[in-house]
């Protein structure tokens, strides 16, 4: 029945806090990979090469339509089948990075498409190089509309880190399950995990909205 033990709660809290650090690290690294890789995917779809665009598009659709947990298993286990050993962390980062890069590339695509055609034409009329056009003119204007989506996926990556527990990464969920298996008490560990997630994701979501406004102001766009 429902009997919450506070002494047990305090006992396991330190271990959970340490695991939270691992979770944040995993989320941060995965997000960093996804942000950069997503931009590569988005720009790859804007090259004149129809073949490249097609391949990247189909790959993105495939990754977005299939479960992340399955992709994590795939990356972790397929390597050894062909002699390539990946550590759980490496496999996890690759899988999460690729998965969220696909989502982010769609966000970037929307942002890039939202830049008015006249801006591209003005850049051409000043004979700016393609690189300059992207970095100085288009991407700064594509950024503010993309921030909301980028922020959502930051929170999303954080919430998806528990999936790494299935290949043994010692993040929050994994640790809670370990505690539960050791002590046969699941109430406190899992509830605390839920509360910790809430305590991090809700303020982060609010912080992103503030950040979005700040970026808009800094770029002189509002």
């Amino acid at each position, binding site marked *: *029945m*429902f009997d919450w033990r506070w002494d047990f709660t305090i006992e396991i809290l330190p271990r959970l806090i340490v695991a939270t650090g691992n979770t944040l690290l995993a989320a941060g690294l995965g997000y960093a990979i996804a942000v950069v890789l997503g931009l590569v995917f988005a720009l790859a779809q804007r090259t004149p090469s129809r073949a490249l665009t097609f391949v990247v598009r189909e790959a993105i*659709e*495939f990754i*977005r*339509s*299939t*479960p*992340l*947990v*399955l*992709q994590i*298993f*795939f990356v972790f*286990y*397929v390597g*050894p*089948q*062909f002699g390539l050993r990946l550590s759980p962390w490496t496999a996890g980062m690759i899988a999460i990075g690729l998965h969220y890069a696909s989502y982010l590339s769609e966000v970037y695509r929307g942002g890039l498409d939202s830049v008015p055609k006249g801006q591209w034409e003005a850049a051409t009329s000043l004979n700016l190089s393609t690189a300059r056009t992207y970095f100085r003119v288009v991407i700064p204007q594509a950024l503010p509309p993309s921030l909301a989506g980028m922020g959502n996926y930051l929170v999303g990556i954080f*919430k*998806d*880190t*528990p*999936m790494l*527990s*299935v290949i043994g990464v010692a993040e929050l*969920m994994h640790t809670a*399950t370990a505690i*539960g298996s050791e002590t046969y008490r*699941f*109430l406190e560990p*899992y*509830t605390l*995990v*839920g509360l910790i*997630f*809430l305590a991090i*994701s*809700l303020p982060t*979501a609010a912080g992103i909205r503030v950040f979005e406004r700040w970026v808009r102001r800094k770029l002189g766009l509002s």
Partner: protein
Amino acid sequence: MSYFEFLGQYGDRILSGTLVTMLLTVLATLLAVAVALAAGLMRMSRNGFVSGVATVYIEIFRGTSLLVQLYWIFFVLPLFGITLEKFTAGFVAVGMNLGAYGAELVRGAILSVPKGQWEAALALNMSPARRMRRVILPQALLIMLPSWGNLLIELLKGTALVALIAVADLMFQVKQINGTTFLSAQTFGTALIIYYVIARFMITPFMRWLERFMQRMVGRA
């Protein structure tokens, strides 16, 4: 062994897992739609308590991950007297989780219905319930359909997690097969392809058909 031999030997287990996945998806969808409509409408209520309950539900289920919710429903709820067997726990968790996202879609769509529609219904002296049912919701439904398509794919992907509480879905079956054969590329690769086929060639066309169907009903196509 070749891929065909692999399929021949394990095909029936993969098929049974696929059927379980599809069943989970359908049940979770029904639950998610019901919950989303209820929570979305409750969120718009002027009664503070009613909208508060909905808000709490939405924020909790959107702020924590599906895996955490699944484990909580399966391992912790029994301590409160609610014991669900694993299949039920599975689709309930997925349905409640995506229902929270769906509730926001419902709310957003209702708010997108042009203000003139509300006013016209009022001018015809419709009661709030009738106005919602006959005027606003049908139009809101059409607005939210495209986003629901994405949500359904997320739902499909979410069902894969129930394998972690040993429900015999597609994910579970391939994990088992991989555990004995270590043919990871074949097992997980096949599963990836099946999920992709369901998402791209079943869910997406179905949603497009549904959109066209609804547009015809509203007289727009």
